[in-house]
């Protein structure tokens, strides 16, 4: 691969990322506004109205406890939603062919879409964080760890969204996973509670939920508290990213869902 190829790949990558960002910015009413409204409602209802009656959780006010989880939940949902809907759209309207015919390697295609998903996840995450400042003082324990988990989680769910889009054949297929898998995993991933509140069996079962590791590591980054070992959590997140990346590239090289 010569220098010229790298330059082509860099421009192609930038093009995909720019296209993805322009896409979700163009429809900001559908992509950026709803998570802002939903999380504001979470902050008001669970954080203030109900939260004040719940008292403390792990030594923090309830609203302070749920803020990290709610930020990460919006990152998860939006990183996933961006890639699944955008890549499924390229398949549905056949403009995936614009990429297939061009000299763009699979890893550039994947990277472009994932970064597009991370861009939306980041934008929504920042928006939700800014809203949270109206309800709580966000004193961050470790900026480095918070940022790392934020980005890694976004990458992981952007990859998951990509795989969902590759397999999806109908609009139902892109809503089934978020509704029946992603939402339950997120809600049961310790966003609203510490797993120490659960009976031992359910605590043990919760450890099989990957979202728990992300939420707790992110919470550790902000509040300095976690139900699980942060290093183990980081290894698990990176491990999942590696597996999903390899799997996505394999799907692309075999042409599953796009060259059939």
């Amino acid at each position, binding site marked *: 691969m010569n220098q*010229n*190829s790298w*330059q*082509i*790949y*860099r*421009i*192609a990558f*930038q*093009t*995909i990322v*720019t*296209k993805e960002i*322009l896409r979700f910015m*163009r429809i900001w009413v559908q992509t950026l506004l709803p998570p802002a409204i939903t999380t504001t409602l979470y902050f008001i209802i669970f954080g203030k109205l109900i939260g004040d009656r719940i008292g403390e959780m792990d030594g923090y006010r309830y609203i302070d406890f749920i803020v990290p989880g709610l930020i990460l939940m919006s990152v998860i949902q939006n990183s996933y939603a961006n890639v699944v809907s955008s890549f499924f*759209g*390229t398949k549905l*309207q*056949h*403009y995936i*062919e*614009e*990429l*297939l*015919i*061009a*000299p*763009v390697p699979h890893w550039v295609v994947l990277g472009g879409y994932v970064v597009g998903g991370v861009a939306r996840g980041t934008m929504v995450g920042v928006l939700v964080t800014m809203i949270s400042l109206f309800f709580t003082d966000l004193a961050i324990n470790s900026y480095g760890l918070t940022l790392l988990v934020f980005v890694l989680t976004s990458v992981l769910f952007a990859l998951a969204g990509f795989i969902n889009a590759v397999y999806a054949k109908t609009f139902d297929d892109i809503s089934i996973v978020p509704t029946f898998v992603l939402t339950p995993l997120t809600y049961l991933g310790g966003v609203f509670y510490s797993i120490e509140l659960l009976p031992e069996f359910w605590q043990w079962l919760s450890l099989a939920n990957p979202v728990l590791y992300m939420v707790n590591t992110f919470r550790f980054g902000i509040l300095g508290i976690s139900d699980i070992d942060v290093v183990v959590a980081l290894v698990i997140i990176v491990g999942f990213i590696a597996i999903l990346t390899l799997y996505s590239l394999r799907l692309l090289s075999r*042409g599953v869902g796009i*060259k*059939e």
Partner: protein
Amino acid sequence: MTALIIENLHKTYRNGFEALKGIDLKVEQGDFFALLGPNGAGKSTAISIIASLINKTTGRVEIYGHDLDRERDLAKRLIGLVPQEFNFNMWEPVEEILVNQAGYYGIPRKLAFQRAGEALKRLGLWEKRHTQARWLSGGMKRRLMIARALVHRPRLLILDEPTAGVDIEIRRSMWDFMREINRQGTTIILTTHYLEEAESLCRNIAIIDHGRIVEQTSMTRLLSQLHTEVFLLNMAAPINRAPDLHDYRTTLVDSDTLEVEVDREQSMNQLFRLLSAQGIEIVSMRNKQNRLEQMFVDLVDGSKEKHA
């Protein structure tokens, strides 16, 4: 130099359908080449393999000396495709579609805007550059796909039924445009159902049927194989029965129209002399069927019989 070489190309789909049964094809640089065949013959499969839209089963494709498997990027940079179906993002503005496509070929954004502008002006879409693609008319959408295929300046342009559903005026202007880019050095492969289009534009031709090439030759040579041509003559005055014109077979279509079958060895001057001798004045004449169409039907029918 040879623009495209296809060797022993096979494609069997997952459902077991064998779309290509080992085709060989050679298209020379600068050619305007017609790839014709009935629906389901394998044209689009072949084109999709050349354009990397589907994976081949076996065989070899080479573009301007670059093997599509071993030198994929180099080969891909040389191809432009105008597919049969609209395949752009309907919600994206026209200019953005072109700029993005240029970006996929590594053209920096500033230059991409410049190239997009040039292509849009050439194809009469400049005024629509900020319009979402879904608001374009059918003809404009076709022209948008041509502009997109040209934005990275390919040396081999594949046009898969580019004028389908386009009115005659636009079709003619698209023909002029295709001739112009071919004159400027772009090799063109055209598939079309309008055989007059292929006859008028293309110098060489391949006919594909049942996944096999049944004929590959020059347009002139192919048409010279026609043994007879059928003409429809419009007469100045009505007649009530077909005249006897010796060796020319005649049929009266209606009282004003006479159908005459002319063999390759027979002279048109002789035909008109015989008609004049019988006091029949001809005001206009036309081919009953496009010549290539006649040849095409003969070849495909022949291929069908072979496979029956």
